[in-house]
């Protein structure tokens, strides 16, 4: 098993200590999505303000470990101000990186090429894949984001 330095990179601890974009947005116009990690009790609420196909603002309420908190914080920075398509792409890339080592329960090991540059700070979370039980900590915010994007798409005027 890998050493803890792979898990607790400085940048991760920094996001944990000073989480970005904490708080709530008014719903509506924003959408609100909730995620639970059924096994450890981590909970997260993602607020998304989407307009004209762009994630104009994002806020996060969460309780959880350093990994889930820093992942949520990094998420908020990575998606804020980005077009929804691009957000979905980042999300896909991030989840692909996380699932490289995950239980084959998730099905075939579809290889999505991971573009570390696109992920920015998020690449620091790569060490998490060496600690299988922590992968769900890192991905919780992202699945919750996905629900929020779906909801925003459904709510959008067509």
């Amino acid at each position, binding site marked *: *098993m890998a050493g803890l330095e792979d898990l607790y990179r400085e940048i991760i601890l920094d996001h944990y200590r000073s989480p970005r974009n904490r708080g709530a947005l008014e719903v509506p116009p924003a959408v609100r999505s909730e995620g*639970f990690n059924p096994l450890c009790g981590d909970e997260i609420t993602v607020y998304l303000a989407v307009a004209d196909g762009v994630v104009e603002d994002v806020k996060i309420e969460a309780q959880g470990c350093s990994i889930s908190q820093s992942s949520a914080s990094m998420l908020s920075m990575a998606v804020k101000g980005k077009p929804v398509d691009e957000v979905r792409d980042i999300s896909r890339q991030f989840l692909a990186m996380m699932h490289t080592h995950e239980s084959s329960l998730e099905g075939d090991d579809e290889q999505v090429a991971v573009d570390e540059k696109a992920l920015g700070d998020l690449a620091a979370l790569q060490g998490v894949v060496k600690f*299988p*039980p922590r992968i769900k900590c890192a991905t919780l915010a992202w699945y919750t984001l996905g629900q929020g994007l779906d909801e925003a798409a459904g709510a959008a005027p067509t």
Partner: protein
Amino acid sequence: MSADHRICDPLDVATIKADFPILARQVHGRRLVYLDSAASSQKPRQVLDAMQDFSVTSYANVHRGVYSIAVEADEGFEAARDAVARFIGAPSSRSVVFTKNVTEAINLVAHSWGRSNLGAGDSILLTEMEHHANIVPWLMLAEEKGFEIRYLPVADDHTLDLTDLDRLIDGVKLVSVTAMSNVLGTLNPIERLAAAAHAAGALILVDAAQWVPHLPTDVVAWDADFVGFTGHKLLGPSGIGVLWAREELLEAMPAFLGGGAMIRDVRLDGWTPNEIPWKFEAGTPPITEAVGLHAAIDYLTGLGMEAVRKHEVALTGYALRTLNERFGDDITIHGPSEPAQRGGVLSLAFRDVHPHDLSQILDQHGVCVRAGHHCAKPLMRRLGVGATARASLYVYNDESDVDALADALEATSTFFG
């Protein structure tokens, strides 16, 4: 006397026998001749060792503990799920639910799918050759819900009588059928029944307790909706069974048992379920047993399920020939007469010796056969008997075991002349 029809066996049974420590044991001064694998099979060293190794190196409760041995335990447990999925041709492990036995698997379907889909005016189709595990859960639910239970009859050649299939299947919501009879050995035409069920708008549940241990299984080729089987009949430990079901069905079904691990959230006034398959696995699962089941699957995969089946066809043929030649009209062997159409389960009537007495006397010769109704009383009534003596064959049996059975049968004349 039977040397003239020695079989050509794709398995090296002498080597296999050596893998099963219990077969080295003596009973009443004779070597143990174990012919009761249809009730429960024995375990090879490889399975016992895998369980022991797991227990002394990586045991912990599962469900994503963070520390190293918990991670290893989780991996061992989930790897077992993956192995089960591969073994039965399941498209994904998400659709593999661990239960305590196949009985629980069928009850799970009855309580979850059945309770929310079957009501007055509905009907389901079983067969006259089902094990109680595939009758009683439906009788219990029917008492509560008032739906009708129909039965496909057993023909005189001990196969399913499909003459009236179209009429009987018309309008049913579920067909629930054993893939192989645990009394007659009959192999049922699952693909045909699945097609008929789907054409009638019904789902099909396959009780594969006797099939999965003995023949290659492909739940997709069957086009089955639910498939259940049990670990202790396929060289694995007691305490573990499997329900496989199509993912969409599992997703849509309400949970059955409530408790830890099957939830996403619990509040004082409500709860939400976890993802499949965990939604159906309340409480601490049979962890070490899953590891044992995995080892059993690896052992059988090592032998090759095609080879296992060929071995059993050949040995069943040898047994039918040997017993019929030696005992003629004194013996009746229930089930289809063609080895290729049946499994190695030989339910016997011998002279006028009652099955209990038969089993008692055979035991004196080290030969283990089960006497009774084999949890299939409706089938017993159909056969017109109260009980049978059942000898069943598996990978560790060979001609010497069949010969020992035949020799012991002769000895019944001491008391029942």
